[in-house]
Each structure stands twice: as C-alpha cells, then as structure tokens.
C-alpha cells in the first residue's frame, strides 16, 4: 500500500527541486555554461519574499510574482557581471563557473549584511493554514500550491522553448551562435533573457521553499545546489522534462527514505538511486548521446 501522505510530500518537495534545477538546465542547455550563482538567487528570493510579506503585509500569493521579477533582475545582473565580460575568452566555460561562484558569494554577503545571520520566518498570521483530507492524507494548501505552481512553471517554460519565437532563438543559439547572429538574432539580448527567466524560476523556487518549511537561512542555496546539479545530470543536463522527472524522483526518494529508513539515510539513499540511474543510463533519463560540435 503506497503511503499517499508521503507520496504527496515527496512530489511537492520534488517539484521544488525540479523548479530550481530547471534554471540550471536552461542556462546549461543554451549556453553550455553552469551558472553557480543560481543557488544564491534561491536564497535571496526566500529572504526578500519573507521581507515583503513581513514589512509590506502583502499576502504570500502576491509575494510570489514580485519575487519572480526580483529573480529576473538578478538574472540580468548575473549575465552582465559574471558571464558577458568573459564570454570571448577561450576558457569561458571555466571562467564563467568561477565568476558565478564569486558573484554568489557577493549575493550571500549582501544578504547577511542586510538581514543578519539569523534564520528568518514568515509572520505566523501570513501563512495559509488550510488543509485538505484526501484518501486519509492531510495535504496543506501550501503543498498543493507548491506542486501546482512548480509544475505549471516548468510546463510553461517547456512551451516557451519549444513553440515560441524566443524559444527558437534560444535553441538556435544553443546549436550555433554564429548562425543565430547571421540570421539576425541579437544573441546578447536572448542570452540575457535566458538568464532572467532561469533566475526568475529559481527565485520562485526559493520563496516556495521558504514557504514550505517556513524558514530562510543563508546556507539554503548551498544545501539545494548539489541536489539541483544531481537532478539535471540524472535528467540529461539540458533536458527540461529530465529536470522535472529527476526532481520529482529525488523528492519522493528523500521523503520515503526518511519515512521508512531514517532521516540520517536520506541523502545516501537518494543519491545512491541517482547514481544507479546513471550507471544504467549514462546520458541521463532524457539526455541524448551526442557530440557537441565545435
């Protein structure tokens, strides 16, 4: 008998992992670069979200679109500061990796300077208390919202990439930036837009995560960073469906491990499972075996 309660907890948590990881996957897929400032955006968004709800007394639901915009702006900063100045270097992959780690450090330092080192929480009255009972399981409105919002955003991103002009431009740049320029694509602008979307999704993930556990901590980005990377590696690096399935899988695996084996085994079992998937499918769940053209 599957434990509905734990399954739902796992899916809800996993959809957050997916929403976070998809930001990695989007930038990696289009630019072939890892943006390691992404976890810092996740943390900044959690603090900003709590601050918005606390000091402006706006509802948590209104807070999310604001955080989305804040994340998009951070994405523009990341692209401009950590990636664009280095893009023509022969070692641009590595250089961008390092500069994005540095920028993440700056973000976290600013966060600490602004909000201090202590854990932040939403004001108690701001959190929705509604719960539903489904097949004997207690499911909170927040969990439902996390699952619905995350999956909707991931699906919307998939539609954007597959069906819109902007998405075609992104895929053109991913395959051949020079050809994209010849066709009239403003590569810098599409690249910046890609970062903005990626960071906006990471920011919403951060705010939802804070909502889920009613906690924001300075280290929350680092805590999810490896999980996000593991999710995209298992999903197939640049695959958006891969990030979704990988994230859900990791969330469910973690929750079931805690429930049936013990919380100290959580990371071991979850990562061992991901490791096994990679042994069977080295290219990831949805990855294609391909050689990148030079």
């Amino acid at each position, binding site marked *: 008998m599957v434990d509905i309660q734990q399954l739902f907890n796992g899916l809800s948590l996993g959809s957050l992992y997916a929403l976070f990881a998809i930001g990695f996957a989007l930038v990696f897929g289009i630019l072939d670069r890892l943006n390691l400032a992404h976890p810092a955006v996740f943390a900044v968004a959690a603090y900003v979200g709590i601050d918005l709800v606390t000091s402006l007394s706006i509802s948590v639901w209104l807070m999310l679109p604001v955080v989305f915009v804040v994340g998009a702006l951070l994405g523009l900063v990341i692209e401009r500061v950590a990636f664009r100045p280095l893009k023509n270097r022969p070692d641009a992959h590595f250089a961008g990796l390092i500069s994005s780690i540095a920028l993440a450090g700056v973000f976290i330092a600013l966060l600490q300077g602004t909000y201090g080192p202590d854990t932040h929480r939403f004001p108690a009255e701001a959190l929705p208390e509604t719960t539903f009972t489904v097949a004997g399981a207690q499911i909170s409105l927040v969990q439902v919202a996390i699952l619905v919002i995350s999956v909707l955003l991931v699906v919307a991103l998939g539609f954007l990439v597959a069906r819109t002009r902007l998405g075609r431009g992104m895929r053109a740049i991913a395959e051949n930036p020079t050809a994209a320029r*010849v*066709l009239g694509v403003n590569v810098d602008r599409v690249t910046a837009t890609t970062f903005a979307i990626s960071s906006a999704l990471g920011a919403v993930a951060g705010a939802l995560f804070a909502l889920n556990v009613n906690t924001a901590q300075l280290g929350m980005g680092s805590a999810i960073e490896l999980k996000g990377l593991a999710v995209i590696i298992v999903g197939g690096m640049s695959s958006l469906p891969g990030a979704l399935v990988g994230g859900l899988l990791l969330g469910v695996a973690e929750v079931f491990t805690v429930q049936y084996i013990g919380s100290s085994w959580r990371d071991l079992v979850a990562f061992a499972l991901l490791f096994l998937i990679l042994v069977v499918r080295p290219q990831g769940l949805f990855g294609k075996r391909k050689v990148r053209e030079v």
Partner: protein
Amino acid sequence: MNDAMLTVDRLRVSYGRVEAVREVSFRAEEGSLVTLVGANGAGKSSIVNAISGIVRPRGGRIRFRGKDITRTPAHRLVGQGLVQVPEGRQILTSLTIEENLQMGGWHAGSAGIDDVYDRFPVLAERRRLPAGSLSGGEQQMLAIGRALVAEPSLILLDEPSMGLAPLIVDEVFAVIGEIRARGTTVVLIEQNARRALGVADRGYVLASGEIVHEGTGAELLADDRVVSAYLGIAT
C-alpha cells in the same frame, strides 16, 4: 540619392596581426549581380563577414542603401534587408526545416515561408523533420530559402556551390538567377570562378586580400592573364 546598393570603400580586415583584407573597394548597383572570386584564403569570406557585421573591420567604410553600416551589428542589418547565406550553409540541424525558415523570418516575420515552399517542394514535404536530415544540396536550398524569408534587398552568398555535386551546382545557379530576376541585389562569393563570372554583371578577382582585376564578367573571362593566373584550376 544616386548611391549604389552597396559601396565598400578601402575595407581592411585583420585577425590579430594577420591582414586578411587590404583596402578593398567595390560597388554593387541596385539589382545587379556582383561576384568576388579568388582562391581559398584570398579574403573573400572576410569581406562578406565584415559587410554583414559579423566581423568588425579594421578600417574603411561600408555603405548600404546610402547609410554607413561599417559598425552596425549583424542583428540590425538583417532587419534592414542585408542578409547573408553563410559559408558552409550553417543550417540549424536540431531545428526542424520549418523552424529554420522561421528563424530566417526573425525580423521580417513568416510571411515569405510559403513562397519558399512553392519554390522548393522538397522542403515543404519535410517541414516537420529536423533540418539535419536533408542532403547537402537540400541544405543549401534551405539556407538560401531561409535568407529569402528575411526579404532581403541585398543578399550575400558565400560559396553556395561548395561541396555540391555538379547537377546541384546547376540548380544553385538557377536559383541565384531567379533571386536576381526578382530585383534583389546579389553579391556572390565563389571559388568556382568561371561559373560565377559567367552570370555576373561585374566581377572582382581577389588575391592575398587585394583586388587584382575587375571588370564585367565577360571581360574577365576573356582576359588571358586573369584566366591563366587566377582561374586556371576552376571549372
């Protein structure tokens, strides 16, 4: 204004300390077909890439429809009607054929796609397939069709016959003739010099980054010095 469609004036292009193009000047009148011929490494592609804004010139001036475009980036020029069909075709192989054509209409919109399908039915039949599934000749037709969707007033064709079988080369040249018949100005870069000079209103022979001969296509083909020194190996 009695400007030519394209005026290139003492253009210089360098890569580091290597000078690829040295003070090259030429014009393309509206509706004409101009060809630049010369051996590999003569600087032909550098000239095309400088005109279309992919490479920044070291010196000189480029004017397009009377406007200075020397420093205008590629993405603006396409919107203004200056479109390149790049060397090696540069098809987006992971996108579908239709998506490649839609990319051609990045600025102009997709209105011209149906005309391309009418001219190249093979592209229409396979519109939903990845462009990488096309043969070399079909990819060249897609590359040209993609440029036409951008509604060019000036089209720069960089080695469109490269690596293609003779029958396909015939078709490429037939399409070039049609483009010109529509009134579109064509600048054609070719190693296949006889073929190119045969269709050109005006030709320029390049060697080591400089124009060494110029004249009408017929004049250059009739000039023994040109033929023996520069066109000897071309067929």
